[in-house]
Structures are given as structure tokens and as C-alpha cells.
């Protein structure tokens, strides 16, 4: 499909109401915890109270004797491990042998009501033999024993990777100037408003049904089949609309599998609804990352060599961690030209809730480092940081040093747009004491180029059914997590068929009724599901056009679609209504059902580790942030944000704006106040290692009164690989916000806070320190593996 093909103008680019908006504003949309069935039982998990310990015994007799208790499960019921990545099958639905963090589930109680289940769960006694606890990556490196897991790259290193794209040390040696900086990006969590919930039941046909708040029903389907030992065809996973995901619901979770087993065991529907604290324990959020960046430039400011080392605090399980590790290096090359690039990444296990993918997956951390370092470089060499970025921006139809293929890029236009809108050139440096402007830019993928487990099948499939009444139903395994996935599906089908999005009914998030879509992650839905939808709709359009052509006695090429009609483009008054076209097509060729699918192009990167980073397209963003810094307290107030996003084409500008501003919001939360932080008590008194504040009160998500004004600008430059030119918007616009804030703080008061969040304490400490800086000062010795050496495209073949 090339852009422009099959456009009818009926849906793309119009600010139409989302198809799912009505259900959401009336309260009729049913989220997972809104589902209930007659005879439903309730499940509560018993979670580890120790951060690292062998399980010596689980005493359940007292709980079993409680009124209303129907079943109790332990690790013995779940001996088969699972995990999202094939290389990290390291979780058990209930712990077997040992617990690895406070909150690891050990047992489960099923009872008539939730309060009874909770009361009985409190009576389950677990006997432990405590083990030494690892609280940080530094400790993990210096404490190889005891190992948290018995796999990985040795000791408590989960994964260590090394990639060299050209000889960076030589490039730095030959550079005019070399800059070295250390950065730290704190961990934070998704905090979707909806807490995870699952309802599992055996339907009247004997099919085990798991309705769950999951962004990846397909992967849950695979994991559940594996752990429960059932053929996948005997399991149906439903993903109802979710109250936000942001990556927090992309792993298969222990509670989902336990609920399923409990439903099989009791023969009754079983519901589990996690508390907010439990959601913090599920986590899979942003990895805390320590970074060392070295960049060598020539006299003109061009980057000759760039080196990134990252040290990730992975928490207690693998999750997406191997991918996350690669992502802390993969997209470093996509925004600015760099001749050579060197990446080292290491993820360690620690006795804390596992980290995973959160909006931007692994890339906001090094993006923070890179964008702040560039600000420092520009300051040192006397360049305007906006001009430097414009001058050094990567170009369309080029390869990066690590073989990523950039097709369209609107980076320069994004930069120019925010520079103009914010009055950067006129206002910067003239705002008075305590006020400042900062700039940053970024790029993100439109879907991962490779699937999580290797296969040759499509990443997304769409089936269309056109009925005699003119109804169109689109079936796709995609999941609506709030981003507007369902609306994109309906909108694209409608565009091709000349209908309104509201004319298209969608059936999504159902592994039995719809073809596979890999899920709502990696910003893949608009591009991948979108292309599959356009593919399916185009086939339907061909059949309808042929039928209409016969009736109108014109060539099929002259059949136009629009306004619910098929018409002669040379004489629009000659037309038939859509339903009639379907009937004619059905009479001519049988049931009008079509399929479409999408598989991304084969990546150019053909080396070990090259599977992370390639994408059919990259979106670009740039932001200018204005801050006011109170020098007496260090309090930073964001006054305004100007953000431009290279969307390719906005399918729905109102929805796109919402994604941009939501990303800005989340980026501001991360850089100003949010922290998934832990507390270790004095080791001589206690081995406790606990989440510092697993609540909506202690985890600081900005309120309405903390949100500044935002001016959003969309840069439209259609991407050939995107449906009607569209690129992603769900994640990319978050990326420039944290570094732009840090750079603005520097512009305002002249100090560098080289770590997130940029809190008043850190700003004030930097103001009082002679170095005028707050941030990490050391990077530990890491046993890097032998690097994979790949010449950059301009130095040779991969």
C-alpha cells in the first residue's frame, strides 16, 4: 500500500469523535473488573514478606478451615515457568523454591468473597530461610553469590551486551574535543488508573476463558497454555478495554495464570482485582539506569564518535529486560549524525519488583543523557543548541551507524516549529533570573521490526465482514488500552470504504474471534494493525467496486467511495448505496469477507543484537520547555511546553493531540517528581527491602494544578510505510520532555542536574555546590563481553 492509495477523505485527518467515546463517557465500557458472573469466586494472593529467601514450607491448614474458602494454591501447582521473552522464562505463577522480592506471590486463596479471601490469606504461614539481599546494580556486580537466578551472564548479571560500530576509541582520539558525562535516570512506573484485574472461567463449550487487563492477549495466551498444559485452542483470552497501560500490562502476569488455574480447579468463575500496592509490585516499569556517555566532536561540532555505557537495575525477574538493555543503546543514533558508535549495556538482577517496558521502553534514559550532554557540548563550544540540532539532524533515506533505516524524518521541521513557537531566538537568555528555556529532540519506533519469538507470520491480521445491511465489522486481536487502537482500526477501514468510523463495528482483544495482532506495545498498532486494516479494506473495496462497476456500467477504476455510497467519479449523481454494493458483491462472488495482514520489512541490521531497534518507520519530536526556578528552595515550576511531533499524517488530530499532551504529562511527572524508589532498613536490624510508597499518595503523579500549558504542533510528512502516511504518537513525544526540563533548569539558574527526577533538593544542592552540578560521579567496573564488531554502513558491510 502506498500513501494516497484508496483515500476517500471520509475519515483520515478529521477531528471525529472516537468510536469508543460514548461507552467511556456513559460509564458503559466494561473494564476487566467490571465483569462478573454468577457464582463467581474471589482470589487473593499471599505475597512474600522477605526480599530474598528460600521457601521452607507453606502452611495452609488454618486458611483452609475458614468459612467461605474454596481452594488454596501454592507453587506446587505451577511448576512450569513462563516469561514474556523466550530467553527469560524465569517466572512461576506462584513461587517455587524461593522468593525474590517483597511481593513475590507464594500462595493463593480462593473464597466466596474478596474479604473472606483476604482474611484467609492472612492465615497462610510461610516459613523462610532468608538469603542475602541485592538492592542495587552495584551490589549485584560486587555480590555474585547468592545468585537471584541461576541463569544469565554470570553472578547477578542478567544480560551484558557490547556492540561496536566502527572504532570509537580511535574516533575519540582523533576528535577535536571529547566530552564525558555520567547520568542517572530514576525508575518510575506506569500508574495506569485501572488496577490489573482478571476474570477466568470455563465457558459452556468447555473453553477456558481468561478476560484480563492485558495489552498483549496473544502472549498471555501462549504463556497460559504453556503453564497450564492446555492446547492453545482450548483457551480464549479476552482483553477488554483497559484503563491505561503504558507498558504495564504487556507481560503475562502470575495472577492471570493463577486465576485461570483456580477456575479450572473449582469449576467456577474466579476473579482477582489487584490493589494499587499490588500493581506497584507487578511494576515492569522504567528501569533505573546509570549511564556514562563519551562523545567526540570535530571543529564544526559534528559527532565523530559516541560511546554509551548503561547499567540497568532490572529487579527480580527477566521480563522484557534483555530487550530493554538493547533499547538503552539502540535508538541513540537515530536523531543526530554520528560517524561511529559504541554501546555497552548491562542489566542486573536485584531483589525488587521487576522492571520492564514503560512508554519509550529503555530509550528515555539514554535520551536524557544524550540531550543533556549535547546541551553541555553546545555551551562549551558556544553553539546555539537548537541550531546545532538542526545542523546535525539525521537525513531521510539514510542508514545510521548501527544500520537502522531512516526513511522519513520531520526532525528539522519539529525543531524549527518549536523554536519559532516558543520565541527561542528572541527570548532565550532574556527571561531574567530564575527563568529559562531548554530544548531537546528525540525519535521513536513505529513498532518493533521483529516479533518477540521468531516466526514468519504477520505481526497483525485484520478480518472484515460486510453484511447485507451494509454493516462492516472489523476483527483484529489488537487491544484498546486507551490510546485509541479501536478507533484507528475503524477509521482506516472507513477511510478506504468511504464510510464514517462510527459505521464500522470492531471486535478486538479476543484470541478466539479475531486474527492475531501482537499487542499494544512498541508503538506498533497504528502502523502495523493499520496497514493490515487498509489491506483488508482494500480487498473489500475491490470486490465492491467490481460489483458497482457492473451495475453502473462503468470501469471499476471509475468507482468512487464516499458518503456511504459508491458512485461514478465522472458523474457522482450516478451512485448506489453501500449496502446495495455489498449485496451485489455477495451475489456475484459469495460472502464478502476479506483479510489483510502486515509484516514489517526485513531489517538491514544483520548482526547479533541487531534485532532491537529496527522499525518500519521512526517518528520524531522536539520540545522547548520554559521553567521558573526558585533559587531559595530549588523548586522548579514548568511554565509552558512547546512540542512538535512528526506524525507522518494525523489520522485524527484530536486523538493525536491527546497522545502528545499525555506524553508531555507523563514526561513531566518523570522528570519532576515520580520515583519507583525503595527503602532498605539498617541491615543489622532488618533485611527489609521495600517499596518506599506503593500508593497514589506517595507516588507523585502530577495533579491538574501541576500541569502547565502545552502548545502542540504536528509536523505532517507522510511516511510511505505507514497507513496513509501515519506514524506513531503514543510514546515518542514523552522522550524530549525530561532532558528539555533539565536543560531549561540550567538555562534558568546555571546548574546541571544530571539525574532524574530533577527535584528541589537536587537543584538546591547543585546551586550550593562549587561544581554547580548534581549527579552520579562513578560508574562501576562491569565485565563487558567481547564486543560484536560491525562496521557502520559507510565503512563496510554489516
Amino acid at each position: 500500500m502506498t500513501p494516497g492509495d484508496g483515500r476517500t477523505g471520509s475519515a483520515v485527518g478529521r477531528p471525529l469523535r472516537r468510536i469508543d467515546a460514548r461507552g467511556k463517557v456513559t460509564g458503559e465500557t466494561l473494564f476487566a473488573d467490571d465483569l462478573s458472573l454468577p457464582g463467581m469466586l474471589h482470589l487473593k494472593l499471599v505475597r512474600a514478606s522477605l526480599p530474598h529467601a528460600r521457601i521452607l514450607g507453606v502452611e495452609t491448614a488454618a486458611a483452609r478451615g475458614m468459612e467461605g474458602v474454596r481452594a488454596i494454591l501454592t507453587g506446587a501447582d505451577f511448576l512450569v515457568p513462563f516469561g514474556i521473552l523466550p530467553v527469560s522464562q524465569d517466572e512461576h505463577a506462584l513461587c517455587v523454591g524461593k522468593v525474590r522480592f517483597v511481593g513475590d506471590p507464594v500462595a493463593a486463596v480462593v473464597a466466596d468473597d474478596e474479604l473472606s479471601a483476604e482474611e484467609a490469606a492472612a492465615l497462610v504461614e510461610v516459613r523462610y530461610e532468608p538469603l542475602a539481599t541485592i538492592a542495587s546494580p552495584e551490589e549485584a556486580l560486587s555480590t555474585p553469590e547468592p545468585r537471584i537466578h541461576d541463569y544469565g551472564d554470570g553472578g547477578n548479571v542478567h544480560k551484558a551486551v557490547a556492540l561496536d560500530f566502527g572504532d570509537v576509541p580511535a574516533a575519540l582520539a582523533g576528535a577535536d574535543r571529547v566530552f564525558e558525562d555520567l547520568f542517572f535516570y530514576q525508575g518510575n512506573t506506569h500508574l495506569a488508573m485501572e488496577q490489573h484485574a482478571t476474570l477466568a472461567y470455563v465457558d459452556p463449550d468447555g473453553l477456558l476463558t481468561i478476560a484480563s487487563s492485558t495489552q498483549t492477549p496473544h502472549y498471555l495466551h501462549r504463556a497460559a497454555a504453556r503453564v497450564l498444559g492446555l492446547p492453545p485452542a482450548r483457551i480464549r483470552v479476552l482483553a477488554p478495554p483497559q484503563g491505561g497501560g503504558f507498558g504495564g500490562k504487556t507481560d503475562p502476569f502470575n495472577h492471570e495464570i493463577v486465576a485461570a488455574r483456580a477456575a479450572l480447579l473449582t469449576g467456577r468463575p474466579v476473579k482477582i482485582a489487584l490493589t494499587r500496592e499490588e500493581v506497584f509490585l507487578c511494576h515492569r516499569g522504567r528501569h533505573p539506569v546509570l549511564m556514562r556517555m563519551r562523545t567526540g566532536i570535530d571543529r564544526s561540532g559534528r559527532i565523530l564518535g559516541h560511546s554509551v555505557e548503561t547499567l540497568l537495575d532490572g529487579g527480580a525477574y527477566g521480563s522484557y529486560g534483555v530487550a530493554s538493555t538493547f533499547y538503552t543503546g539502540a535508538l541513540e543514533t537515530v536523531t543526530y549524525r554520528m560517524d561511529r558508535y559504541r554501546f555497552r549495556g548491562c542489566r542486573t538482577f536485584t531483589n525488587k519488583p521487576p522492571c520492564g517496558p514503560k512508554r519509550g521502553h529503555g530509550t528515555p534514559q539514554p535520551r536524557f543523557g544524550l540531550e543533556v550532554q549535547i546541551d553541555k557540548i553546545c555551551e562549551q563550544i558556544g553553539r546555539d543548541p537548537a541550531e546545532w540540532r538542526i545542523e546535525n539532524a539525521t537525513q531521510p533515506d539514510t542508514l545510521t551507524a548501527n544500520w537502522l533505516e531512516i526513511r522519513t524524518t520531520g526532525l528539522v521541521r519539529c525543531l524549527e516549529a518549536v523554536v519559532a513557537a516558543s520565541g527561542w531566538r528572541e527570548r532565550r537568555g532574556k527571561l531574567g533570573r530564575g527563568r529559562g528555556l531548554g530544548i531537546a529532540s528525540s525519535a521513536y519506533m513505529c513498532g518493533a521490526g521483529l516479533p518477540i519469538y521468531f516466526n514468519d507470520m504477520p505481526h497483525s491480521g485484520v478480518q472484515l465482514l460486510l453484511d447485507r445491511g451494509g454493516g462492516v465489522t472489523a476483527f483484529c486481536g489488537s487491544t484498546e488500552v486507551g490510546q485509541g487502537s479501536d478507533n484507528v482500526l475503524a477509521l482506516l477501514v472507513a477511510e478506504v470504504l468511504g464510510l464514517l468510523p462510527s459505521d464500522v463495528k470492531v471486535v478486538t482483544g479476543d484470541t478466539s474471534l479475531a486474527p492475531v495482532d501482537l499487542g499494544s506495545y512498541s508503538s506498533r498498532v497504528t502502523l502495523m494493525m493499520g496497514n493490515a486494516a487498509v489491506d483488508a479494506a482494500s480487498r473489500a473495496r475491490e470486490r465492491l467496486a467490481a460489483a458497482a462497476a457492473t451495475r453502473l456500467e462503468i470501469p471499476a477504476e471509475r468507482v468512487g467511495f464516499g458518503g456511504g455510497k459508491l458512485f461514478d467519479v465522472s458523474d457522482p449523481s450516478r451512485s448506489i448505496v453501500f449496502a446495495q454494493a455489498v449485496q451485489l458483491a455477495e451475489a456475484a462472488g459469495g460472502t464478502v469477507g476479506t483479510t489483510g495482514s502486515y509484516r514489517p520489512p526485513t531489517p538491514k541490521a544483520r548482526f547479533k543484537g541487531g534485532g532491537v531497534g529496527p522499525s518500519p518507520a521512526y517518528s520524531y519530536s522536539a520540545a522547548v520547555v520554559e521553567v521558573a526556578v526558585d533559587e531559595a528552595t530549588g523548586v522548579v515550576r514548568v511554565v509552558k511546553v512547546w512540542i512538535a511531533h512528526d506524525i507522518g499524517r494525523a489520522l485524527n488530530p484530536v486523538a493525536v493531540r491527546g497522545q502528545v499532551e499525555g506524553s508531555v504529562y507523563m514526561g513531566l511527572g518523570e522528570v519532576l517528581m515520580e520515583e519507583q524508589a525503595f527503602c532498605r532498613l539498617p541491615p543489622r536490624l532488618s533485611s527489609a527491602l521495600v517499596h518506599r510508597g506503593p500508593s497514589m499518595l506517595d507516588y507523585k503523579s502530577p495533579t491538574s494544578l501541576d500541569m502547565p500549558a502545552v502548545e502542540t504542533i504536528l509536523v505532517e510528512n507522510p511516511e510511505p510505510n505507514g497507513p496513509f502516511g501515519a506514524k506513531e504518537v503514543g510514546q515518542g513525544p514523552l522522550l524530549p520532555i525530561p532532558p528539555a526540563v533539565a536543560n531549561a533548569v540550567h538555562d534558568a539558574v546555571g546548574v546541571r542536574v544530571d539525574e532524574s527526577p530533577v527535584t528541589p533538593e537536587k537543584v538546591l544542592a547543585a546551586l550550593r555546590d562549587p561544581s554547580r552540578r548534581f549527579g552520579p560521579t562513578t560508574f562501576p567496573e562491569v565485565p563487558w563481553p567481547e564486543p560484536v564488531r560491525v562496521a557502520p554502513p559507510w565503512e563496510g558491510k554489516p
Partner: protein
Amino acid sequence: MSPAGPVPEHGPRARSRISLIVNTQPRELLVDPWKTLLELLREDLGLTGTKHGCELGECGACAVLLDGDLALSCLVPAVECDGRHVTTVEGLRDGPELHPLQAAFADHGATQCGYCTPGMLVAARWVLDRNPSATREEIAEALSGQLCRCTGYLQIYEAVESAARVLRGEPPSPPRLPAADRSVPDDAR
């Protein structure tokens, strides 16, 4: 003057009968004293439009109107609702037509995942009930107990302002569009 009879007591073993008006409908129920209004609405009355995000009064997702005042149903014991009026998101509209706030939320992109939406709508109704011409600042203040992780709040404000216009008899404002840069790109293919 003192009331007759023993002090009214509920539970712990016997449930209590309460009657209340939910979305203008009189309801009579037996409740345990430890049940909150949130649980009563969602579990006893099947009104799952009211959501929950923390059950501790920290997020605003469970907000309802209690005797016309914005309140968090997760922190109200159901037994204390005897004789009172409760309005939930389901009670905003009467019939198939959306309430102007609901229509505005749908049109202005004020609902993404939709999970904070019921509480947000109820809070918006509360502020406009008291002040039909609320300013942007007053709206932001009134909604400051309602966390939203999706929108960044700005499209919500615009929706409330547009609905306020409709409620005052003025035409709604169209959804605000982002500035679009479609100029011939320097980096066009």
C-alpha cells in the same frame, strides 16, 4: 429532648436495611456496615460506571455526588447513605441523549482510556452546578482531586468549558486542533 429507643446499631453479624436515592431511583438494600458506597454501587446495584483506582481517597476515580456534593465513594460507609441522594456517571443523562458534559468529553478528546472519566465527569458536573461560568482556574482547582494519567488534563478543561457554554445556552466550541505544519518539507522525499 432525646430520641426514643436504643442507639441505632448495624452489624457486625446482621445486615442493615437502608434506603437511598440513586440517580433519582429509590433503592432499598441490606448492607454490611463495612461495605463502602463504592462497593454498594458496583457490587450490589451493578452500577459499574463508578471506578476505583486506590480505594484510599488518593485518586478520585470513584467520585460521585452525595447530596449534590462531590465525594469519594470509596470512603463513604454505605450505612451512612441512608436517606441520601447519590448521583453516579450513569445518572448524568436521562434517556439516550448524552449530557452536554458527556458529549463534550467525547468530542474534545477528554476521554482516552476512560477510566478516570466517570469521576472526572461527576466532578465537572459538581463545579458547573455551583458555578456555570467557572474559569479555567476554577475548573482546574475543582478537578484537582481527580488524577488522569492519559490526557494531561488540557483537553478535559476544554471539554468542561465547552459543556458550560452549552449549559448556558450557547453553542459548543469545536475541539481545539493542534497547529499543523504541512508546509513543503525541506526534507521531503
